[in-house]
């Protein structure tokens, strides 16, 4: 954890501060708002930055540790900045038995990136997910909001090229 930032309390300027507060407006500060707020924050900024967690902690009056405890429990949340595109390889059962794992490795090799990370040129971030609900068309990958079904290793390259 980056202690430098937490120590200083909020390191945001007025404008950034305001942008968080616009986000919080729809909530009334109950503990039950935590997960939805984390989701909204991630939706807006793409990830949960240290600053964001700090702001949420002040708003809901719960400790940052507690927030991290909750956020790390759920696989949806990410703590590093996303790439321009997001690629998710399905590792659900249907995709597994139809070669999802080899497909995942091919993505990693093609883009030189590990699951959970973002490529150096920030072009892609790479996630593994358990089922996108299109199991009948396995194996599938999702890039941004497009789902590519009946995937194969040799189709992958051509598809990746469409995302700059």
């Amino acid at each position, binding site marked *: 954890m980056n202690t430098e930032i937490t120590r200083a309390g909020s390191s945001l300027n007025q404008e950034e501060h305001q942008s968080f507060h616009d986000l919080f407006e729809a909530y009334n500060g109950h*503990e039950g*708002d935590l997960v939805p707020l984390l989701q909204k924050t991630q939706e807006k900024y793409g990830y949960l930055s240290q600053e964001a967690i700090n702001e949420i902690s002040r708003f809901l009056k719960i400790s940052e540790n507690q927030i991290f405890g909750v956020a790390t429990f759920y696989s949806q949340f990410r703590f590093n900045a996303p790439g321009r595109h997001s690629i998710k390889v399905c590792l659900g*059962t249907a*995709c*597994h*038995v139809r070669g999802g794992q080899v497909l995942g490795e091919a993505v990693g090799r093609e883009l030189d990136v590990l699951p959970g990370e973002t490529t150096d040129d920030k072009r892609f971030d790479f996630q593994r997910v358990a*089922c996108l609900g299109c*199991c009948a068309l396995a194996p599938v990958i999702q890039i941004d909001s497009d789902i590519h079904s009946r995937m194969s290793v040799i189709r992958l390259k051509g598809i990746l090229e469409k995302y700059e």
Partner: protein
Amino acid sequence: MNSFNTVRKTSLEKWQALQASKVPIIYLGAASCGIAAGAMEILEAIEKTLEEKKIEAKIIKVGCIGPCYLEPLMDIALPGKPRISYANVTPQKVPRIIESYLVKGNPEPRLALAHFGNGNHGFPEEIPGFFDLPMLKSQVRVVLRNCGLIDPEEIDHYIANDGYSGLMKGLLNGPEKVIEIVKEAGLRGRGGAGFPTFKKWEICRNTKAPQKFMICNADEGDPGAFMNRSLIEGDPHAVLEGLLIAAYAIGATHGYIYIRAEYPLAIARLKKAIGQMREYGFLGKNIQDSGFGFDITIKEGAGAFVCGEETALIASIEGKRGMPRSRPPFPAIAGLHGMPTIINNVETLGTLPNILRNGASWYRQYGTQGNYGTKTFSLVGKIRRSGLIEVPLGMTLRQIIFDIGGGSRKPFKAVQTGGPSGGCLSEEFLDTPVNYESLTAAGSIMGSGGLIVLDDDTCVVDLARYFLDFTQRESCGKCSPCRVGSRHMVEILQRITKGEGEAEDLTKLQTLGETVKRGSLCGLGQTAPNPVLTTLKYFRPEYLMHVKEKHCPAAVCRDLIEYRVVPGKCTGCQKCVSVCPTGAITGPRAEPHNLDPSKCIKCRACYEICRYDAIAGDAIIIKSARSTVDEQTV
């Protein structure tokens, strides 16, 4: 009731006007599966073709009708005629389909899959009825009755097809009577455990409290199952009507739908549907003047399998880590914020309007003693006709897999039911009737409805490792049998699949599995060993081959397999040379290539390109390293 009759009348008029439409209607399967298969490109092609040919037609996006393997699916209804369905449509095929049927009125049996409606409506004889197709013939559509047939974004379509009349009946009869009807119908929870629905409702109803909650469990955590997603996308109001019926029966004033964030389309459909309910007086303080007040909040799950478990789900809604707690007290007595709470699965709720509308004895005509009604399944894996199906309980696995699903291309090996909590059943269980008790007796469970078919190319040891790895990662860590035991089991299974297993590993797995099963706090740990225990029991020889001979007969476990070129088949086309990322394949054009196993990373690229692009098609094979098959003859 009066106001409902007015609403119903208007909805019916709108629906009938659509049926009597003077312009043709094109129905496009645009559920997540359809979109993944390319429905949006089809939509573009349709719009372009209509414009070019200056044809007027109405396009309606519908949910998934079931046979996902035929996606993208589009139907055309000419005025006064039922729909004709076209399967595996491509943008290139669209102009041909439109030209032949919309312009010339000839449905072209070569292009058409099937027609809707009873009788043949003067369609060519070669075009079968949609519900006579082998995949559909023995299905019974109760829960899925509207999916693929109505516009899921139009509440009028739902109401015109008897929607919300089950609720209205319930509101007239009073909550006790609703519970009574559900009891008589014999409905059991479709979320996995099969607990009688009326029983928990009754407990909740009889608990005195200032507030009660009703939750719809749409977390659908089983990876490889999509029944709940399809139902919500294809007929959201059915689930919402069910939620209202349940809430009314137990006396809840507020409801939640806990749905996984990976289902954006389903979430959007629910939001839209909830808005329409409000507009039509199905939400708020005084629903249809009945005095019953109810409202709904959508909560997006954040990606944790264990949150499908009811106490963990409640913790998650409360904003905490989704950790299960021990029961009792059951949520029906003390649940969300300590208040009596009922959690029902999407499909359980989707069934309720049908039961209320048609009565308990109507529902009991489906299924068998103690297991009444129908169940939806997602039929996937190594199966010809994959998709979403609904069958009466009591149908055998064989009927489902072979009659409906058409079997697997390679010889059938096993079927996995119940997801990570379920088991793997071998061929000898094919005649087992699908009901809660017989699947449990076989060592598996019914679960929520995932059916994964495995053929000879699937390794059951690898599958057991896969499931255990999944549950172990998803273990919330609260109790040690699950946290430590499952991790240990994964380590052993990893060793075995790497060819480093020893004979006593199998006994260890067995003992550990039984311990985790007995000692875990919640259903996750209590069922996690099932995939291992069932495969150990029914596929022991395959484990032994991995352990003793370091041989994976399915040629899946990567440390035990090799890629080989079959010299007698290789034409030397060099396609594989061009895709190999490590330069493991070499050879001059027109001569059989060489594959250097020390450089091969088993990435599958050569295997695929040979099958799809090369002349030979099968010159590259994946074999167990121990296999001694003569390469010239395979």
